[in-house]
């Protein structure tokens, strides 16, 4: 049962860590504007200043076409092939970094439309593609986690419900006598509801310990892996609030399981069966 509780929480933690990553990268979103081939250097510099003055823009860098070709030569290794070209096929390029506030998906899109409309701009490109994919994946994952959570929560309710059902059957005589001497339904139910809540509490604590143990066990390898990719990705542990919530939820589930068992199996224990 501890495992049933620990699993969705573990996945949730992974998810939150992933979302942290994509939030970090979103800030790295950059817009590249390729100017038309017939645009001259002076015009390109004028454009740079115009764009830079926009409040949504943090920084603009101009890569002149000659410089771009030189870089391309080096990085592509097509040195000799490029010599056959009679003129430089590369346009001037503006590398635009948006202001923090404009780094949302909508903000970036607005920026793209604004730049696209400029006469001397041929094409605008955004490094958002893979970011959207990551977002879509985490979105899908989070749905899967919620679905799994619901299933496992139901499993916890059933397991505790079954335990409480057995407890009720074992104490059938006692329930009968208690009802006979004037015990109210709530008096008779109470110990079983408490039993359920205690089981839930136990399950929650076990789940918490399992989580902490596996985090502790995984964190070394993850740090090394993240180091290889120069990422600051790390698995966040459960905060105090989170641990508290986990245990409370577990207790509520236990109570709920007991309540279902009590509803189904105790209320039909009737003193009428005696004698």
């Amino acid at each position, binding site marked *: 049962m501890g495992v049933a509780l620990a699993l969705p929480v573990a996945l949730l933690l992974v998810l939150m860590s992933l979302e942290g990553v994509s939030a970090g990268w979103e800030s790295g979103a950059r817009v590249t504007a390729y100017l038309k081939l017939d645009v001259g250097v002076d015009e390109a510099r004028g454009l740079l200043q115009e764009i830079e003055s926009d409040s949504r823009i943090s920084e603009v860098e101009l890569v002149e076409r000659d410089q771009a070709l030189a870089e391309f030569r080096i990085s592509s290794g097509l040195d000799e092939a490029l010599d056959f070209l009679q003129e430089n096929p590369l346009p001037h390029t503006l590398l635009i970094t948006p202001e923090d506030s404009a780094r949302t998906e909508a903000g970036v899109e607005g920026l793209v439309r604004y730049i696209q409309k400029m006469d001397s701009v041929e094409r605008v490109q955004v490094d958002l593609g893979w970011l959207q994919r990551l977002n879509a994946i985490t979105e899908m994952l989070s749905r899967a986690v919620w679905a799994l959570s619901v299933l496992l929560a139901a499993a916890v309710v059933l397991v505790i419900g079954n335990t409480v059902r057995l407890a009720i059957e074992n104490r059938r005589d006692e329930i009968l006598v208690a009802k006979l*001497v004037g015990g109210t339904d709530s008096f008779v139910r109470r110990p079983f509801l408490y039993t359920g809540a205690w089981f839930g509490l136990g399950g929650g604590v076990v789940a918490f310990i399992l989580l902490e143990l596996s985090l502790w066990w995984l964190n070394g390898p993850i740090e090394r892996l993240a180091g290889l990719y120069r990422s600051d990705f790390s698995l966040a542990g459960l905060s105090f609030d989170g641990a508290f919530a986990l245990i409370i939820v577990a207790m509520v589930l236990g109570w709920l399981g007991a309540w279902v068992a009590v509803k189904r199996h105790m209320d039909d224990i009737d003193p009428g069966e005696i004698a």
Partner: protein
Amino acid sequence: MIEFRQVTKRYDSDHTALRQVNFALDRGELAFLTGHSGAGKSTLLKLVMVMERPSAGEVVVGGQLLNRLPRRQIPYIRRHIGVVFQNHQLLFDRTVFDNVAMPLEVTGASPSDIGRRVRAALDKVGLLSKEKMNPMQLSGGEQQRVGIARAVVNKPPLLLADEPTGNLDPELSADIMNLFGQFSQVGVTVLIATHDIALVNEMNRRTLTLDHGRLVAGGSPLMGV
């Protein structure tokens, strides 16, 4: 204390356990309820306990009409009724003391109050020295007396007994009956269901006789005495 008005109890569509039963028991009265096995004695007691509901007619206990009593009110009625069973319904997972304490525990009485009243009840049935024992260690007669102590521990105004001497030899039975007599003397209404005719005759009390669900004798107080 108890009044039945034209009470009929049908279990299945055609199986009638009680037919148009009429009688009234006064406060402090002790009466027997006799009849062959299956005559409807237990059914009559269950109607008083609201363990069953009448199919027709009215059951009044302590001035309260039970027919339409809401389910949640039933426990509060039962707290005013002590019951003794033939198989005594004691719990073997706890001591004599704890068995007798149950009717007080369900009312949320304080531990000191419970201790005092449980000992008083055990003293009355002569078992004070055995309070720490398990009921399993006691003889049949002693177990039945523990059952009686449990039935009277919260001083109910009404005491019901269903075959309380069914498993006991005549001497022990007489003991138990004397105990019931003492309770009625202090104002408790006592109704004892039994098919032990010899015992009933010996006690010379009002006797309600059931025959196939009909009350054939003792329905009016004058007839039985």
